[in-house]
C-alpha cells in the first residue's frame, strides 16, 4: 500500500525533538553554572573551590530528591502538594530518633523511608481508589502530615549524629553527588520496567491506557509511593544538612519542587519529562539562590528575582522549544 516512502527525519532530529525539555534544562543549568562562576569570580576574585561546590551540592540535595519524587506524580498528570509535609515529618522523625550508632542510623533511615512510603500510599489510594483529584487529596494530606510532624517534634531541635551528616552530605567533599548519580541510574532502570512505561502511558492518556489494559491504579500507587519515599529521603538529607530537626522547614519544598520540576522540563500536563531533567531543575533552582546571594541582591527581593526567573525561563523555553519543533 505504500508506494510513497516519505522522507524520514534523521535519528538525531528525533532525539532533539523528543527531548527538548531535557536539552533546555541542561542548557539552563550550564548557563546557571557559568553565571554562578562569573559572579563568584567577580565578587571573590577566585573560582569557587571545594568548599563552595560542596556546600552548593549539599544544599541542593533535599530539593533534588523532593523534585524527583514530585516528578513521578507530575508524570501521571498529578501534582503533590503534600511533599513538604512528608519532608517535615521525615525531618522531625530523624531529629528525634537518630542515635550515634550505625545500627540506629540504618534502622531509623529505613523506618523513616517506610513512613514516607506509607504517606505516599495514602495519597495514591485516595487518588486511585477514591477517584479524587490529586491537588485536593494532597492539600488534605499536607495538613495531616504537617500535624504529625509537629506532634513528633513540637519545637525545632533534636540532634543528628555527625556521622550521619558525614555519610549523607559530607561537608568537606561533594561526595553527595554519588547519591545523585545513583538516583539518576535508578531512574533509568525504572524507566525500563513495566511500571516505568505505564507511568508515562497514563500521563499521556489515562482513558487510552485503560483500553490498553494498563493497570492505572497500581501505576498511580507506585508513583505516589516512590514520591513519598523520595520526599522522606529529602527530609533525611535536610536533617543531615542542618544537623538538627525542624518540623516546618520542609514546607517550602512543596512549591519549590514544582518549580524545579517545571524548570527541569517536566510537563505539568503529564507524560513528558524525565528525572534527569528534574535533577537539573533542582540544581538550577539552588544555583539561582546562590547567584542572588553572591550578587549581593537584597535578600528581601530574593523571591522577586526567583519568580521573575521562573517566568522568563518557562516563556523562553516554550518559545525556543516550539521553534525547534517547527524548524526540525
Amino acid at each position: 500500500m505504500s508506494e510513497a516512502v516519505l522522507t524520514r527525519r534523521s535519528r538525531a532530529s528525533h532525539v532533539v525533538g523528543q527531548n527538548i525539555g531535557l536539552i533546555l534544562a541542561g542548557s539552563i543549568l550550564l548557563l546557571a553554572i557559568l553565571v554562578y562562576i562569573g559572579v563568584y569570580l567577580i565578587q571573590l576574585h577566585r573560582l569557587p573551590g571545594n568548599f563552595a561546590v560542596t556546600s552548593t551540592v549539599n544544599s541542593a540535595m533535599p530539593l533534588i530528591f523532593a523534585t524527583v519524587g514530585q516528578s513521578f506524580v507530575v508524570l501521571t498528570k498529578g501534582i503533590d502538594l503534600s511533599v513538604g509535609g512528608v519532608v517535615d515529618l521525615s525531618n522531625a522523625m530523624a531529629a528525634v530518633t537518630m542515635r550515634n550508632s550505625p545500627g540506629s542510623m540504618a534502622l531509623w533511615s529505613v523506618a523513616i523511608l517506610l513512613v514516607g512510603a506509607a504517606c505516599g500510599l495514602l495519597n495514591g489510594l485516595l487518588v486511585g481508589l477514591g477517584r479524587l483529584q490529586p491537588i485536593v487529596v494532597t492539600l488534605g494530606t499536607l495538613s495531616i502530615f504537617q500535624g504529625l510532624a509537629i506532634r513528633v517534634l513540637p519545637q525545632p531541635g533534636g540532634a543528628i549524629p555527625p556521622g550521619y551528616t558525614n555519610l549523607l552530605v559530607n561537608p568537606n567533599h561533594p561526595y553527595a553527588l554519588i547519591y545523585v548519580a545513583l538516583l539518576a541510574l535508578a531512574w533509568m532502570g525504572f524507566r525500563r520496567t513495566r511500571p516505568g512505561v505505564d507511568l508515562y502511558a497514563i500521563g499521556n492518556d489515562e482513558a487510552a491506557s485503560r483500553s490498553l489494559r494498563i493497570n492505572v491504579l497500581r501505576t498511580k500507587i507506585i508513583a505516589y509511593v516512590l514520591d513519598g519515599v523520595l520526599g522522606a529521603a529529602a527530609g533525611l538529607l535536610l536533617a543531615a544538612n542542618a544537623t538538627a530537626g525542624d518540623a516546618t522547614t520542609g514546607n517550602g519544598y512543596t512549591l519549590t519542587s514544582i518549580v524545579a520540576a517545571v524548570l527541569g522540563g517536566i510537563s505539568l500536563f503529564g507524560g513528558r519529562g524525565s528525572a534527569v531533567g528534574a535533577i537539573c531543575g533542582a540544581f538550577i533552582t539552588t544555583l539561582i539562590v546562590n547567584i542572588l546571594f553572591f550578587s549581593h541582591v537584597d535578600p528581601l527581593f530574593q523571591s522577586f528575582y526567583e519568580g521573575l526567573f521562573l517566568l522568563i525561563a518557562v516563556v523562553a523555553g516554550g518559545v525556543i522549544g516550539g521553534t525547534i519543533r517547527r524548524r526540525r
Partner: protein
Amino acid sequence: MKRWLALSQDWRRVGYAVIAAILLFVLGQAVHPGFLRLNSVATVLVISSFVGLVAAGQCFVILIGGIDLSVPWVLNAAAIMLTVTSLGQEGRAPWAILVTLGLGVLIGAVNGFGVAFLGVPAVVMTLAMDGIMEGLTLGLTGGFTCGACSSYAPPVVQAMAHGASLGFPNALWLWLAVILLVSGALTLTRFGRATYAIGNNPLAAFLAGVSVPGITILLYAASGFFSALAGIMLVGFGGQASLGMGEPYLFQSIAAVVIGGVSILGGRGYYLGAAAGAVSLTVLVSVLLALDMPDYFRSILYGVVILALLLLYGREETG
C-alpha cells in the same frame, strides 16, 4: 421534582456543601454548648467571609480549569498597600481603597495575560507571580519595617470589618453582595456562559466566537480583585498589615471551592457552594479551637475532615 434531581448534579453538590456547613455548626453546639449563639455564629461567619472573598476569585479561575496560587502575596501586598497609602487617615481611605483594589486587578490581569497569551500553565504563572509579589512587597517595605508600614487601617475600613448595619455585620453585607454578584454573573450573564464554555472546552468556545483570552484575563483580574478586597478586610479586621498574613488563604480558598462542589478540572460548579465551603472550613477550625485541641491535632483533623467531605460527595464521575 424528579427532573431536578435527575438533572443537576452540580446543584446537588452545592446542597451537600450547605448541609455540611450546617452539620458542622450543630456539631459545634454539641461539643461546645453556646456555639450556636447568635453572637458566635456571626463571628464565625465574618471570619468565613474573608476566605469566602478569596474563594470567589479562586472559583472564577478554577471554573476555567485554572488556579490562582498568587493569592497569599497579592493579599499581603494589598494589605500593606492600603495602610501605606491611607496612613490610617479617614480622608485618604477612599483613594487608598481604590488604589489597592486597582493593584489587585492589575496583578490579576497580568496573571491572565501570561496564561492566555504567553501560554504559561496557570500553576507556573501564578506561582511565579506570588514570588514576584513577595519579593516586591518585602523589598519595597524593607521587610515591613518602613515608617508607614505600621500605620493602622483607617477607621472606615475597620468599621467595614467590625461594624454592623441594620443589626447585621458589615462584613456579611459585603459578602452577601459578593455572593449575589458572583452567582448572578455566573448564571445569568453572557460572561457566565462564556466562563462555563471555556471551562468545558476552550477550543469549542473559541470556535463559537467566545473571546477566550479576554474572558481569561477578566477572570484572573477578578481573582486579583477579590484577593485585594480580602486583604483590605483583613487589615480592617486586624488593624494592621502583618508579614505572611495571606499565607493561610491559598489552601483554604482552594479547599473551600472544592468542598463547595466546584470541579477542579473546570466547567462545573457554583460559587454558592464555595461560599458554603468557606463556612464549613471556618466552623471546623472554630470547633477544633473550642475543643482546646493541640495545634498538631487540629491540623490533622482539618485534613481528615476535608478528605472525608470530598470522599462523601466530591468524586469525579468515572469516564
